[in-house]
């Protein structure tokens, strides 16, 4: 190993990067665009759902119920059709996502001690909206049932269960607090494996790779020289995300910087290794980028970055253990939000170390073989 040769390779790589200023600019814009999109789109709360209320009862009870819906913050009443049949076109055209139907005689039934049905119609073509809407609507009606006796002056003293449901970490349940730490890891995968996949195949296409290996350069020197500049770039991207996340989105950090650093370092090796492997296997740059995209999408979906692993079917969940990003997310989110320490995160860190050894190791071996074959 020669320090001078490695320095020369790094200098060459940086000089080449400088010659493509548009690429550099795009690489620095990318984290910002992703922050904005993921921060505001994925982390958006479902609120203010456009709702139509069909109040056929027109009594104090029905008005109370409508007020409860309006006051919840989850529903915005935009239409008041006078019949149930008028509801259909409103949902068909997407003007409203939710319809609430209070049948005639609701108050009378309640007063006579009977059960009164409240119709709640949700647009199932958007399943996120529909599951959230139906959950909140059910809660509002249940709450109304609890509050009503008190309003009627009936004593509610008696047995029951006083459950204190408390969210201990991230008590506001603000999705951005878990999105930003996740994005720090995801940007590594997205940009690093995308650029790294081009690195070696580009030099092979131009013939410079062949030239380099007739010089005294050894494979490990080549890899270090090739990888360092891109690792520096990736670290810059992560820093942008962390800075904007903590200063603009006010994401708190309770963890240990060293644990986060260790996790990211290991994941960095995994991403670089993956990029190198793709670059060594591909014959053209176009092929390399297709392969990368082909791998990246399932990795992001299965890692739990956007869609919680808990909501995946039981058959799919074991697959997520094969995705390194999953462990990186575990480490980052737990560190940021819960302040988990080294002992808490031993398992995901070990898994990441294992992936790093296997993937980066085989990339190094493959480089050696590719060159000497």
């Amino acid at each position, binding site marked *: 190993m020669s320090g001078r040769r490695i320095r020369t390779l790094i200098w060459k790589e940086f000089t080449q990067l400088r010659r493509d200023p548009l690429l550099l600019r795009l690489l620095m814009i990318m984290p910002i665009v992703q922050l904005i999109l993921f921060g505001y789109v994925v982390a958006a709360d479902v609120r203010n759902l456009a709702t139509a209320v069909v109040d056929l009862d027109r009594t104090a009870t029905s008005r109370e119920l409508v007020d409860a819906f309006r006051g919840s913050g989850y529903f915005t009443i935009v239409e008041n059709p006078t019949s149930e049949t008028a509801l259909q076109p409103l949902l068909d055209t997407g003007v409203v996502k939710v319809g609430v139907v209070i049948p005639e005689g609701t108050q009378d039934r309640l007063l006579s001690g009977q059960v*009164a049905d409240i119709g709640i119609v949700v647009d199932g073509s958007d399943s996120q909206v529909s599951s959230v809407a139906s959950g909140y609507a059910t809660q509002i009606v249940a709450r109304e049932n609890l509050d009503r006796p008190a309003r009627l002056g009936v004593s509610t003293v008696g047995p029951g269960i006083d459950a204190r449901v408390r969210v201990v970490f991230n008590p506001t349940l603000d999705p951005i607090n878990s999105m930003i730490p996740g994005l720090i890891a995801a940007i590594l995968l997205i940009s690093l494996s995308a650029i790294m996949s081009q690195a070696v195949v580009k030099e092979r296409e131009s013939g410079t790779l062949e030239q380099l290996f007739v010089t005294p350069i050894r494979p490990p020197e080549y890899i270090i020289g090739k990888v360092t500049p891109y690792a520096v770039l990736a670290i810059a991207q992560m820093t942008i995300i962390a800075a904007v996340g903590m200063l603009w989105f006010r994401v708190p950090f309770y963890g240990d910087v060293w644990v986060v650093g260790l996790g990211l370092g290991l994941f960095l090796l995994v991403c670089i290794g993956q990029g190198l492997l793709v670059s060594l296997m591909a014959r053209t*740059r176009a092929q390399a980028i297709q392969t990368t995209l082909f791998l990246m999408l399932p990795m992001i979906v299965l890692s739990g970055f956007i869609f*919680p692993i808990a909501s995946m079917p039981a058959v799919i969940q074991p697959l997520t253990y094969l995705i390194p990003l999953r462990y990186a997310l575990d480490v980052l989110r737990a560190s940021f939000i819960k302040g988990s320490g080294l002992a808490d995160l031993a398992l995901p860190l070990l898994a990441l170390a294992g992936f790093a050894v296997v993937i980066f190791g085989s990339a190094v071996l493959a480089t050696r073989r590719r060159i000497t074959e």
Partner: protein
Amino acid sequence: MSGSLDRIGAVVVKEFRHLFRDPRAIGIVLLMPVFQLLVFAYAISFDVTHLPTILVDNDHTPASREYLRQYSGSTLFEVVGYSDTQAGVIDAFQANRAQVGVIVPAGFGRQLASGAEGEVAVLIDGSEPTSAKVAQAYTTGLNLAAGQEVALAWADRQGASVSGLGGLEPRLRTWYNPERRSAIFLIPGLMVVIIAIVTVQQTAVSLVRERDLGTAEQLAVSPLRRIELMLGKLLPWTGLAFVDVAAIVVLAVWLFGVPLRGDLAVLGAGAALFVFCCLGMGLVISAVAPSMEVANIASLLLAFLPTFLLSGFVFPLDQIPAVLQWISALFPARYMVAISRGVFLKGSGWDELWPQFAALAAYAALALAAASVLYSRRSR
């Protein structure tokens, strides 16, 4: 005109040759959509179940055991362990071993027996907000129901009736997708995302490659007219994109049981316009990008991210900030998602969807015109 057709044909043949010379590329173009469809359709869901749960029973009475049995009996919770203290629950949260902790303090059974409210605590790890929200709603609901049951049982023992008050009963109906299966909601949108990824990326890279190989200069001096070259480049990709669309529709209907309520012709027309939009965008990127790396990153930024996040494919558009809603109007994906979902799930036709069609047509015309101008300038 016949000469023109011959020339277009020659370019089409050349493009297809490029495609088939590289069997891995063709494999990716044809297999990727199917693969992505399977992964996405199976993996993305909003039905949270089996939340890892820790139970803490400091009461050790039949009442506490019966209360906790409601958690172990539910599919929403999966009891992964027991602890004696709240600190044990927090530790489990920090090590990512559990997401919910239910604590029954000592005295719970005594409180219930004396006709008082039994106090319990439910702790939820909020670091994964999506499932935490569901856990919050479900535990609240579970405890409301449990409380009502306890009250009824008590009233029963006292010989009183509490049902005299009546109650409101929500009757939930879900239209368009009554079983609320995520796949049914996702797949029509997924089709749009997949088409965008395959076509934009491919065309963006294909022209840069041509310039790298120096054949662009060669083509520029040939008698090909600009528009002929464009058409020749577009047609093979349009053909491939339609193979992808067909594969997705077949899988959607047969494998996932997505209802196709509307007219297939409407869907096809929409898909054709959308493919032209994507190809136009890809060509614009490739004409402007100085290198393959830039073309790649640019198509990631301009095609993939907006299609994935700003199309309404998974993330409802009316829930995002207004500025982003305007930006989303600048990308064709949201119109196509509306068309696809409308045709599949709602049986919508021209009458409902004409604004989306108009937007796509305008976009396609604009993108192709821009590509044509840029391309001719570039190759000169």
